[in-house]
């Protein structure tokens, strides 16, 4: 009964389900997803935290991941056939407790339709994974900053004196193909003292937020 109601509401607000995938912005969704990070990761083979790993959640039957603690209500919903689709996830995200009484998810819900569409687009597609540990330290403004790729290319010449591009990572980790957000987080963490390494702490001291964004944008470019 409740589910039917949500579906109707959804149809009225957002039109056909296909529109959801088309209009959601996965990159913005990745940024919004950081508010979920204290309880969820979204990484291939990522661990369960308080809540399940949400990588590949679309198409999954509710309450069925191994080594994950679910509420009885969630398991029961899965046994009754609840599969996470864009629509069902939209309903759950809007009002978790209302959608599923007995859910343990202590999240008030996302009221804004666009926010939900963006997060769902992120969880649906091949959006960049969030290396989540500590990502909440980085503000959405900084994560959304647009980098100057050409400047990033120049700045990167300092990095590749030690980090092979591409290369093995004996002694010093390779940085080719690093996720943009993971890169941004690492640079900010070294600069701001959340991580320590003599060389990296020194190198990042003079990097501005814009320069970190430029480096991230350059390293995110496909290799030549």
């Amino acid at each position, binding site marked *: 009964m409740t589910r039917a109601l949500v579906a109707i509401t959804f149809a009225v607000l957002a039109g056909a389900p296909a529109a959801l995938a088309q209009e959601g912005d996965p990159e913005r969704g990745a940024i919004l997803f950081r508010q979920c990070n204290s309880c969820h990761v979204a990484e291939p083979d990522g661990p369960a935290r308080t809540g399940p790993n949400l990588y590949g959640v679309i198409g999954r039957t509710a309450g069925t991941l191994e080594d994950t603690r679910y509420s009885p209500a969630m398991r029961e919903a899965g046994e009754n056939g609840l599969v996470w689709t864009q629509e069902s996830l939209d309903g759950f995200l809007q009002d978790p407790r209302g959608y599923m009484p007995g859910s343990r998810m202590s999240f008030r819900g996302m009221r804004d339709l666009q926010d939900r569409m963006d997060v769902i687009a992120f969880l649906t597609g091949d959006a960049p994974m969030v290396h989540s540990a500590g990502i909440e330290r980085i503000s959405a403004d900084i994560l959304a900053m647009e980098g100057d790729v*050409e*400047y990033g*290319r*120049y*700045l990167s*010449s*300092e990095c*590749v*004196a*030690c*980090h*092979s*591009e591409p*290369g*093995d*990572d*004996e*002694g*010093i980790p390779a940085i080719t193909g690093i996720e943009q957000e993971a890169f941004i987080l690492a640079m900010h963490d070294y600069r701001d003292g959340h991580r320590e390494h*003599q*060389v990296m*702490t*020194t*190198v990042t*001291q*003079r990097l501005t937020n814009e320069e970190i964004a430029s480096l991230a944008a350059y390293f995110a470019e496909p290799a030549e």
Partner: protein
Amino acid sequence: MTLNRRTFLGTTAALAGTLAAPAVLGQSRPRAVVIGGGAGGATAARYIANDSDGAIDVTLIEPARHYYTCFFSNLYIGGFRSIESIGHSYGTLASDYGINVVHDWALAIDRDAKTVALSGGGSVPYDRLVVSPGIDFKEGAVPGWSLATQNAMPHAYKAGSQTELLRAQIAAMPEGGTFAMVAPPNPYRCPPGPYERVSMVAHYLNEHNPTARILIVDPKETFSKQALFQDGWSRHYPGMIERIGPDFGGDRVEVRPDTMEVVIDGQAESVDVCNVIPAQQAGGILHQAGLVENDWATVVPATMTSVMDENIHVLGDSTRQGAMPKSGFSANSQAKVAAMAVRHALTDSRMFPARFSNTCWSLIDTDDGIKVGATYEAGEDRIEAVDTFISQVGESAETRAETYRESLGWYDSITADMFG
């Protein structure tokens, strides 16, 4: 005339050895010529060629077909690396980057005609020239020593056959013999280099000739990473190493290669191996070109151009630039700024504020690595340090081992950054 990458490569290959090749091709493309295929020159050539995507015709003039890096050459002496593992060739720069590699000596720079004369005859014209010749030794700096006696008393401060010779002499030392080093005055290539070398010689002797001793004759009051090296020597090689500083005549030394004697403040001492690292100056071609004042070529920090010629960039050990040490890492870093400035001048590409960095790793004994480094920026007249760091005495064995592993990763990365 438009040249795509393939025809450019093909033409270059077809004309290989023809010195007029750059001039012929250069009619449609600006020409950058690089003298010296070491840490600075190889990096500059590679970055100009790679980042300009073929818009600039790059020629690299380097007499040697194989380049042995000075960095890590001490590890060869200590037995941690093979000589092959520190050798690099120029094949990739030619085949993958389209660089016209000319194996010849650059004899002279004609700054008015903007050409470089080669010892094999002919000359190469340039629009922008990058000169990165490394160091030369100052004649008469150590009385009794000259290049003519460098086999009796090797410097081993340009890596390759000299390094192999020094190692062979150390291996042939009699039991309980003496290895002497005459250390150079400032400024010189690789400030921690002589003291890493002492560490590596000590490591070798400790294994093969443990009653041998090491004598350092040093004109300097203090030296790079001194506390770290002295701490390491006392832990790993107690009683083996003696250093005579200027207080006791370290700045008043003479050598006698014929009799294998070192004379310190008038006192002659017989030694078995003598490693003489003389005082240094900019590479000879910079003197010929009139770009040197008081031993070194002064540069403009933002572009690494000579203060005397805006069409010539000078890199690395030959420069007087301010706060950066003379090191392969510094030369590699400076080369990237110069490459950006060359591209800006020749193709109007974007120019960004110059920034530089350097880290020098040294090995004291197995898994006991240390490092010192800094970031730098271009000040008005000189390169200025921004932030610095250095290893600490008393670090854990795990930290030291990790520092050494870092240096291995760095070596692979920076040589790929230089030679492709």
